[in-house]
């Protein structure tokens, strides 16, 4: 749900969490989803939403380096944890390897699934330095892309795994 | 080669000169004047169109073409 106007009887509670290395303290209704905190409360709109059924993966972020769908997590459940969104991939103006690979492979078109897709790829690469083709496809299976047909995304992850890109 | 058939309503020369082609033109246009002319011949425009749509071949157009031939 968008818009965090001061309505709703429910008393708000304090949430402390870290997003992209930044500490945040917010007062939220406990039913607030993580994706709502990220987009509507903190204002990081890179993370998208594409469904109501935890199907599309557009809202994928990393919680403590694990890919999760932020529309299927209550924000209060990540109290004290570290959340990374697409905005957290680049480091002082330098793109992360996976972002460079997406550019070189044209691994995005309309770009709407891209932030979630990038986070699934990044989490996969953190876990498995050199995934097989099948592992890459399984790694992004929870993310729908309607434009690319996925193959360019698989090539991008493989290019990073091959070490074609360096940090910074 | 005889005179190309003309549409009895708008006078449009049939593309390939034949009455069947003119009949197709009348269905294709399908506006009020064309419909009314067909109805005036004692035919139902919509019934002919639906028969043309639902049965293989060209019967409806042939029926209309015969009438067009007569009035040329």
């Amino acid at each position: 749900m968008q818009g965090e106007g001061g309505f709703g009887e429910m008393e708000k509670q304090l949430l402390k969490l870290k997003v992209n290395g930044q500490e945040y303290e917010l007062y939220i209704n406990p039913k607030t989803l993580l994706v709502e905190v990220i987009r509507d409360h903190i204002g990081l709109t890179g993370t998208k939403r594409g469904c109501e059924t935890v199907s599309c993966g557009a809202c994928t972020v990393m919680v403590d380096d694990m890919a999760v769908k932020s529309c299927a997590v209550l924000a209060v459940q990540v109290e004290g944890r570290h959340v990374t969104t697409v905005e957290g991939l680049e480091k002082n103006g330098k793109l992360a390897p996976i972002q460079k690979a997406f550019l070189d492979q044209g691994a995005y078109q309309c770009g709407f699934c891209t932030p979630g897709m990038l986070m699934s790829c990044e989490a996969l690469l953190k876990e498995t330095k050199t995934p097989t083709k099948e592992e890459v496809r399984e790694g992004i299976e929870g993310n729908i892309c309607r434009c690319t047909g996925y193959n360019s995304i698989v090539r991008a992850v493989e290019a990073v795994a091959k070490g074609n890109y360096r940090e910074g | 080669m005889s005179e190309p058939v003309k549409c009895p309503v708008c006078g449009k020369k049939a593309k390939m000169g034949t009455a069947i082609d003119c009949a197709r033109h009348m269905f294709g246009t399908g506006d009020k004047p064309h419909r009314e002319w067909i109805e005036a011949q004692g035919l139902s425009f919509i019934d002919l169109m639906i028969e043309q749509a639902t049965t293989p071949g060209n019967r409806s157009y042939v029926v209309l073409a015969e009438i067009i031939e007569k009035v040329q």
Partner: protein
Amino acid sequence: MIHDFTYLKPGSLQEALVMLAEHKDDCKIICGGQSLLIVMRQGMLVTDYLIDIKGLNELSYIIYDKKEGLKIGATTTHRIIEKSELVKDKCPILVEVEKKVASIQIRNWGSIAGNLAHGDAQAGDLAPSLIALGGKVKLASSRGDRVMPLEEFYTGFFENAMKNDELMVEVQVPPIRPRVGSVYTKFNLIGNDQGIVGVATTIEVGHDSTCKDARIVLGNSGVTPIRAKNAERVLMGKKLGDQLLAEAGEAAASEADPVSDIHASEEYRRHLVRVLTERMVGQAWEKAICAG
């Protein structure tokens, strides 16, 4: 839209059970919430209190006991089980099944107990597989604990044997004996999608390769996971053969009680149950012989 609720976060299992006893009629438990939040967002589930056990690390464990086998804490995530060396060593089929559960994002956050306790677990991968493995669940309440076979846990459409003050705290998988083979498969249209039907099978063979024991469990073929007992009987004491497989498949198909929906007609679902049962029994049998 999610309706408002009061959020309760117990610091210990003890505290959780007290909260549960207090609010038993108007509360829900959330762990990973991967299924729960969907129905809450659809407004189909409204609750006054939501008790969040996700943070109860005392319930996140995997241990192995020679007598009782694997013991997996309720809040253990699918991903932890999937990657556990202990599980891989003691119950490799469970790793295979976990890999088939939804997507990595969901396995990262969702828990085993949440999956088993959710309303339509019968349509999932774990319930049929664990029943085929003779799995048990431990239910705790402020009144005490009890352990029951998972097979008896599911009682009807979106219904289970848990009392409203009880919490599923542990999943148990008995030790796998020699000459036992277990397999699971599901039929679906895309990727790791939920099964249109699923079949889990465990076969134990004697030294002469005849069938000593069999468990065939059908997923998404009725309101609960279904033990295809007639199909199992067909196998007892027999030697593996195409004719036998066909008979078992037929039996299972007639034991299934599937619905017709947009994804498959009842008749087609029965057909799939027959085909998959033949395949799973055959594979489990081969595995059992190799495991001898």
